């Protein structure tokens, strides 16, 4: 099994506007993974990437050549996601985690433990889930995650730690042996019941929107 998948967009070479479309195409595989991490659903992820690409093309003059294109693209993706979550909250109950969360169309049935992992992953707050995927699947450093998520490096580390900690507790019933008092306290509070966890997830997703939607 591969351990780390990196694309050219992971590195940050200086480039001109002429490279914009090339960079966009290069970034797409990574962006699709990030969209799936955010939406938990393949169809929604495809729609989100398409919307983000449309926004990026419309706003390409606002991209500063030589800066981190992957981070710029992720911020657009995230802002579109936040807008979609807000819009959906007006018409649907996003408190419910879809049973098809992270399901692969046409894929063979997962093992029981993989099904459990998919279910629990989908209940994490979107920002923790996405930070975890960026680090664990895409091999991004905490600095790169922080740049993409527009947060401090310490916050990025904390999100990944909390995600691992919560998944470990839900899956094994074991607490991690690493000190993180604030993390443990807030996670315990939010995980008091499955219903409370789902509510917390929805609130967290809606609460992601400190950035202005593109």
């Amino acid at each position, binding site marked *: *099994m591969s351990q780390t998948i990196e694309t050219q967009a992971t590195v940050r070479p200086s480039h001109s506007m002429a490279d914009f*479309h090339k960079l966009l195409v290069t970034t797409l595989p990574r962006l699709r993974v990030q969209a799936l991490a955010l939406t938990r659903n393949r169809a929604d*992820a495809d729609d989100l990437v398409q919307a983000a690409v449309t926004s990026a093309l419309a706003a390409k003059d606002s991209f500063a050549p030589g800066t981190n294109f992957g981070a710029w693209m992720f911020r657009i993706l995230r802002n579109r996601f936040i807008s979609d979550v807000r819009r959906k909250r007006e018409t649907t109950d996003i408190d419910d985690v879809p049973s098809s969360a992270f399901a692969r169309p046409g894929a063979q049935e997962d093992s029981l433990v*993989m099904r459990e*992992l998919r279910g629990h992953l989908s209940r994490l707050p979107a920002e923790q889930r996405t930070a975890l995927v960026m680090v664990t699947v895409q091999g*991004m450093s*905490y600095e790169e995650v922080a740049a993409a998520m527009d947060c401090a490096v310490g916050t990025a580390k904390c999100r990944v730690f909390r995600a*691992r900690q919560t998944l470990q507790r839900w899956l094994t019933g074991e607490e991690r042996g690493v000190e993180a008092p604030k993390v443990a306290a807030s996670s315990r509070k939010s995980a008091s019941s499955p219903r409370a966890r789902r509510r917390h997830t929805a609130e967290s997703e809606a609460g992601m929107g400190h950035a202005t939607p593109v």
Partner: protein
Amino acid sequence: MGNGRGQAAPETAFDLWLQRGLHQMFDDVMREPIPEELLRLIEQDRSQG
């Protein structure tokens, strides 16, 4: 939580298991072809620009 280069290396057996599980869930998406519609959208914009 990571090494000196800011890489978030897994530390425990659970982390390693989680890493394998997440790769299993997401690697297919990373590898599958980009939808033609998306590539057309980008190409269209490039040729207009």
